[in-house]
C-alpha cells in the first residue's frame, strides 16, 4: 500500500527530467537555421568591386575544427558558443573602408547574438552535467585563431582588401560551425 506512490513519482521524475533537459534536436534545428541566415548575410557584403592583388591569407584554423572530428554534443556546444562570440567581436570593429551596407552588418550581428542566447540557456546545464577536459584545449586554439584574424586587420589598418580576406575567412568559419551543429543531437 505504501509503495503505490513510488511508481507515479518515478514517472513524474522521468518526464520532468526529459522536459527540463537540453533538447538538442530543437537546438540543432534553430542554430542551423540562424547560421545559414548569417552566411547569406555575410555573402551579401560585396562592397566595392575591387580586386586585391594579395587577397590570400592562411589563418591556420584548428585542425579539429576544419576536419570536423567527432565531438560530444556538450563539447560541440561550447565550441560553437566560443566561435559565435569571436564572430561578434570581429564584426563590431571598423569596417568603414569596405563600403558595406551597415544594415546588413547589423542584421548579421543580431542573428549571431540570437544563437548565443539560445546556447547560453543550455550551456549552464551542460556545464553542470559534466566537465569537459577536451573543450579547454580546443577553445584555446580557437582564441588564437581568431586572434590572428584581429591582428591581420590591425596590421592592414582595416583596409578594404584586409576586410575582403577576413570576410572570406568568416564565411569559412561559419561553414565549420555548421558541421559542429550536426553533433547537437539527443
Amino acid at each position: 500500500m505504501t509503495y503505490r506512490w513510488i511508481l507515479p513519482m518515478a514517472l513524474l521524475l522521468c518526464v520532468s527530467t526529459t522536459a527540463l533537459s537540453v533538447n538538442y534536436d530543437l537546438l540543432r534545428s534553430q542554430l542551423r537555421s540562424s547560421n545559414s541566415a548569417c552566411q547569406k548575410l555575410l555573402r551579401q557584403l560585396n562592397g566595392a568591386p575591387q580586386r586585391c592583388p594579395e587577397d590570400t591569407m592562411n589563418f591556420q584554423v584548428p585542425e579539429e575544427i576544419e576536419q570536423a572530428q567527432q565531438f560530444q554534443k556538450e563539447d560541440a556546444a561550447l565550441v560553437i558558443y566560443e566561435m559565435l562570440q569571436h564572430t561578434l567581436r570581429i564584426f563590431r570593429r571598423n569596417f568603414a573602408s569596405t563600403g558595406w551596407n551597415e544594415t546588413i552588418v547589423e542584421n548579421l550581428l543580431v542573428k549571431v547574438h540570437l544563437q548565443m542566447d539560445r546556447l547560453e540557456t543550455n550551456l549552464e546545464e551542460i556545464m553542470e552535467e559534466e566537465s569537459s577536459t577536451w573543450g579547454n584545449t580546443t577553445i584555446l586554439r580557437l582564441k588564437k585563431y581568431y586572434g590572428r584574424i584581429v591582428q591581420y586587420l590591425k596590421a592592414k589598418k582595416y583596409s578594404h582588401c584586409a576586410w575582403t580576406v577576413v570576410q572570406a575567412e568568416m564565411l569559412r568559419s561559419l561553414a565549420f560551425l555548421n558541421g559542429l551543429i550536426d553533433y547537437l543531437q539527443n
Partner: protein
Amino acid sequence: MLLSQNALAIRPLNLYPVVYISLLFGILHAVSVSPDESCISFNLTLRNFRLILSWELKNRSIVPTHYALSYTIMSRPAGEMIVEDCINITRSFCDLTDEWDSMTETYVTTVVGIRGNTTLVSCWDRVFPALDTSLEPPEFEIVGFTNHINVIVEFPPVIPKMLVMKNLQTQLSLIIEEKSGSIVKLHRPKIDGNTTGNFTYVIDKLIPNTEYCVSVYLEPKEAEKIRRSPLKCTLLQPGQESAAVFTSTIITLRRIGYICLRNNYPKVLNFRNQSAWVFPELPPLEAVALVEIIHINRKKKVWDYTYDDESDSDNEAVPRASAGGYTMHGLTGLCPASTSSASSEDCFDPDPEEPSLPQPGAESEPLMAPGPGPWQSECTDGAYERTRNLLQDPFPEEDSCSTEGTEDRIIFNVDLNSVCVSTLDDDDPEVPPVLSCIPEETVDLEDAEEMETSLLVAGGEGMQLPFPSPPVECLWPEDAPSEKSDTAESDVDIGDGYIMR
C-alpha cells in the same frame, strides 16, 4: 562611424571646404579604380556529381572565340592556379570536379576572353561553393512491390573530393521524399564518402493498393535552394512481389539452363537456315467423314465367265467392274450428326476388302498391316507407308462416331480427300473428292490391332499440312462380294470404278 562622431566638433563654417575636398578625393579615387572589375557572372552547378562552372559576360557585345580559366584560393597563398583543361577553350563552361577540393573556400576565379591573339576581356569574381552551388537532383529509379518501394539512386564511381570531408562525412545530404496523397514523408539515408554506384534505399511499411510518388534531391549544409527531381510514382499491387520474385526466378533458371525450354521439332520444321519461308497454299478445308471399315475375309473368287444365278446373293457385293482387274474397296460411312462435320453425303457404303490384305485368311488383320499389294505398285512408295500410318491411332480416346471395335471391324476417321473411295452417290456434288494417296505427314500411327478408331489427322490440332499433289492413282483391287455388310445397299458402279482427285 568615425566621421559621424567627429562631425559635431566641426563648426559649420569649416564644413563646406571639408565636404568639397572629400568629394574631390572621392571622384579621383573612383577614376583610378582597377580596370579588372567584375564583368562576369558565374554559375556553379553540381550535375550528376560533376562540378560545372559556367559563365556569361555581362557585356554581351564582347564575344570572344576562346576562354582561359584560372583561380586563387583566398585561404591558401599559393598563387594563381591555371586550369589546364580549360585553356584556350571555345565553350563557356569548365568541369572543376577534380580541381576544386573544398566547398568552404572562396575561389577568386578569373576568365580571360580571347579572339585570335587579342585579349578582349579579363573578368573575375569570387565564388563560394557552399552557398553558390546549384545542386541538381541525382538520377534514380523506383521499383514498387506489395508493401514497399526500392529507391535506387545512382552515385558516381567516386564521389568528388569537394563533397567529402576528411572524416568521410559528406557536405551534402540525400533526401528521399515519399508522397501519398497529401501525406509527405522525408527519408534521410546516411551516405558518406564510400557511397558509390547504385545506392538502394527501401521505403517499407507501405499500404498495398496505394499509389506512392517519390522524389529525390540533395540538400547542402548551407541550404539555399533545393532542386527536387521530378516525381516518379508507382501503384503498389498485391502479388506484385510474388510475381516479381517468380518472374525473376524463372528468368534466372532459364539463364542458367535449368529450364531448357526447347521444342524438339522435326528437322523438316526447322526453317532457320532457310533464306525464305515457303508458305505453300493450304488446301481448302476438307470435309471429314467418319467411316467404318468392315473387314471381311473372303475367298477370292475368280469369275469363270459363267453367269450362274446361284452365285448371286443379296449379301454378296457385286464385284465392281474395273478396267484394270482390281477390286474396289467400299467403305461405310458412320455419320452421327453430332460429331462429324461431314454431311450425310459423305457416308459411304462399306465394301469389304480381301485380297488387299497380305494375309487373306486373317480375320482381324488391320489395314495397317497390309503388305504391298498389286494395287500398291501403282502408287508411289510412300503410299504404302502412308497407309500404314493412317491406321495408327494417336488418340486413344474413343471417337464418338464409333465406340465398338470388333475383330473384323476397324473404325477410323478418314479424310475422304486423301483416300481412294467409292461413293454411293455419284450425283451428289457435295461429296468431297478424295485424294488418291494418303499424305505422309498426316499422323504418326501406332500399331493398333485392337484399336477402335484411327484418325487421319492432317497435321493434328486442326492444322493442315501441305498435301502432295495428287500424283498417283491408288487402285484398289477388286474384291469378292463380302459376307457381311453393314448396309444392304448394293454397290455402285462408277464406271471405271475409281474416284480420283
